[in-house]
């Protein structure tokens, strides 16, 4: 039987690099830039000899091929910027490949974001119909599934309430509930489990498992290795747009983990291949991990302090913004979130066109040896959507150290360690 998804030599090229004549980001070009470029280009070309040298082709994907059979669940694993999201965007037809070809047999549903098209002014009922039709369901399909969707989301009482009065958890639940009831042959899913409370995440995983078991084809992109191993028997590993490995998810995950920790602890976040989520009103440009004395580092000993240094640029005015640093382990499990607004009033205001440097120092990082990743998030107030969020922006490694001054390295069975004071005396008789 022919595979459900057949991907043949897919490549995707972005043209990047040079900023336009006025220095604006090429994604937000003004007509002025185009005109200025048109005027300046001949002169520039004369000076530089050729225009070609100034153009940089960036291959976000090159020659990726794989098949997925009916009833298979395939995970796509790789670092941020490896091309995972690009693959999903091509298969969902959101963007188009530069080369290659993909055949999808069956109706395709995608879940790259929960609740796409939700409108805050509309009620839960109205949004179910709107969101369902955006995801490709017909009106009669939505009608017949309506009660199950409402029940799955657990919002029976609020079905006639405008969604703007929902808590963010309710919105996510409603969005996932609609998507979970898509009756399609192929389902493409991206990291939607990153949101929602633990109980709902379990519910989602259960539903996705059910979907995969029912003979439908699932393509799953995630940084959560536990979810990958649980849901998908098979996985592919992408690295810098190339297919590195196509094997069982256990093998792929262990290869992925063994390749981590090779970064330098600093990253340019203006790289267009980086996957980011947010309103775009301000964006991170740079992140750097440092020692407390200011040296750049990617490796530190147990119990050492760490300094997060990040630069961001505002496009619009924002009030009450703060940065969160999210530390997770190599497998994608959350360790802790260092909230920028929890420790007193540390929020700040942003003004358009201005760059801001945000520093956060932790005097002591009580982590056991291993690879960890830092995700960064910029928020303004408590809106549902982050201003900018970059998952696993940078990695660092903790190496064993004699942290308790005993001449021994503490055992590495767990992730965090805590200082402790002990006494053991005989209880009074």
């Amino acid at each position, binding site marked *: 039987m022919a595979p459900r998804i057949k991907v043949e030599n897919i490549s995707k090229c972005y043209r*990047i690099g*040079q900023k336009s004549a006025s220095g604006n980001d090429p994604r937000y070009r*003004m007509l002025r830039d185009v005109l200025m470029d048109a005027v300046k280009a001949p002169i520039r070309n004369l000076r530089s000899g050729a225009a070609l040298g100034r153009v940089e082709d960036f291959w976000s994907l090159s020659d990726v091929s794989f098949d997925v059979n009916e009833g298979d669940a395939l995970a796509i694993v790789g670092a941020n910027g490896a091309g995972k999201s690009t693959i999903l965007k091509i298969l969902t*037809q959101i*963007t188009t490949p530069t080369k290659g*070809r993909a055949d999808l047999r069956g109706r395709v549903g995608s879940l790259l*974001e929960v609740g796409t098209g939700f409108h805050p002014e509309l009620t839960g009922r109205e949004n179910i119909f709107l969101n369902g039709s*955006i995801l490709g369901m017909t009106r009669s399909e939505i009608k017949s599934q309506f009660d199950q969707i409402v029940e799955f989301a657990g919002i029976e009482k609020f079905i006639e309430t405008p969604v703007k009065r929902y808590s963010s958890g309710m919105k996510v639940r409603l969005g996932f509930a609609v998507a979970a009831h898509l009756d399609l042959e192929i389902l493409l899913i991206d990291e939607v489990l990153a949101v929602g409370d633990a109980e709902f995440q379990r519910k989602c995983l259960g539903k996705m498992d059910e979907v995969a078991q029912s003979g439908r084809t699932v393509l799953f992109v995630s940084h959560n290795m536990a979810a990958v191993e649980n849901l998908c028997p098979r996985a592919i590993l992408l690295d810098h747009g190339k297919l590195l490995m196509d094997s069982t998810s256990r093998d792929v995950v262990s290869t992925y983990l063994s390749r981590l920790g090779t970064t330098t602890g600093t990253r340019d976040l203006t790289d267009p291949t980086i996957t980011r989520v947010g309103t775009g009103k301000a964006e991170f440009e740079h992140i750097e991990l440092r020692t407390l004395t200011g040296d750049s580092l990617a490796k530190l000993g147990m119990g050492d302090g760490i300094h997060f240094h990040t630069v961001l640029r505002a496009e619009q005015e924002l009030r009450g913004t703060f940065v969160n640093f999210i530390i997770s382990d190599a497998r994608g499990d959350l360790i802790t979130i260092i909230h920028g607004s929890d420790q007193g009033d540390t929020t700040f205001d942003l003004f358009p066109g201005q760059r801001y440097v945000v520093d956060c120092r932790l005097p002591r990082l009580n982590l056991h040896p291993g690879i960890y990743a830092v995700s960064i998030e910029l928020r303004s107030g408590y809106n549902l959507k982050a201003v900018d969020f970059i998952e696993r922006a940078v990695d660092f490694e903790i190496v064993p150290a004699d942290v308790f001054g005993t001449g021994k390295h503490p055992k590495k069975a767990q992730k965090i360690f805590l200082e402790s004071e002990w006494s053991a005396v005989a209880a009074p008789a």
Partner: protein
Amino acid sequence: MSDTLMDDTDSHVARAEAVLPGSARGDRGTVIRPRSGWAFINVGELWRYRELLFFLTWRDVKIRYKQSLLGIAWAVIQPTLYMVVFTIIFGKMAKVPTDGIPYPLFSFSALILWNFYAVAIAQAGNSLLMSSPLVTKVYVPRLTIPFASVGSALFDFFVSFSVLLMVMVFYINFSAVDTSGVHVGPIMFMVFPILLLTILLALGVGTMLAALNVAYRDFKHTIPFLVQLWMFSTPAIYMSINEPSADAAAPAVAQQDKSEASVKGMAEEKTANQDEADTDANAELGIWGYVKKALQLNPMNGLIASFRSALLGHALPWRELGYSTLMVVIGFICGCMYFYRLEPKFADII
């Protein structure tokens, strides 16, 4: 010369193409591959997504009037206020020719069609930016997004159109104003094909503005100005284009002057003075001639004049209507083609 995402060369322009090997649901398949060059509307795909088009239109209508005190009345208030202003300025002060139709009726019948068109292109022009998650997070045929904006403007049109019909009934039966210029008859049904042409034009211009707005953010600021300017270049809204007005007659006189001058110029020996006069006449004709020609390019003039004539029972300006139809077809095709041309890049540049 290209150096950004925007300037992809043809070899990099790619488009996914959906094919339907069978109509049964399980047989649906999609082939994704690069495709270059120009393409025209994928009607089959648009038809399959007709329910989405309906839902997006319904969403736009619903959102517009939620939490607003006057609600749907806003669809009527705007053209009504314009009507009052126009009646004072053009009807009372300037006394422009109206073919014997009371000025409020004359301007209101034009204004509701104009208002539909203006709202439709402004909304469609901003539609993609307003719904950017629909472009970057999910696949829907992108053309449905500006089309839905035109659809919701059409809803408003029907609301104000029913108000217009009531105003007409009032004028003809219950008012003391002379309505001898109004002859309601079966020609009234011509408003529907004329409306259809206006919808097509709004779709073409709206989709083009939407695509331009994604590529160049300038259009966000340009669209309101463009709508305003377009209104001024549509004199049919506030005056009759049938009778030659004083302004229209002036260039004709200039034309005569000019031909006399050139005949004289050929017969006699040219002097410096004559040369100067000749150039002056030419320049004057040049500017007004070009302005008039430019205004004639505007299909809304013919559409609005025809709409009003059909509604109020006057002879249709067939020549203008035919010319407008041609422009509408060209506008619709160009707008959609440009949209489709840029569509593969939307998600990358929005």
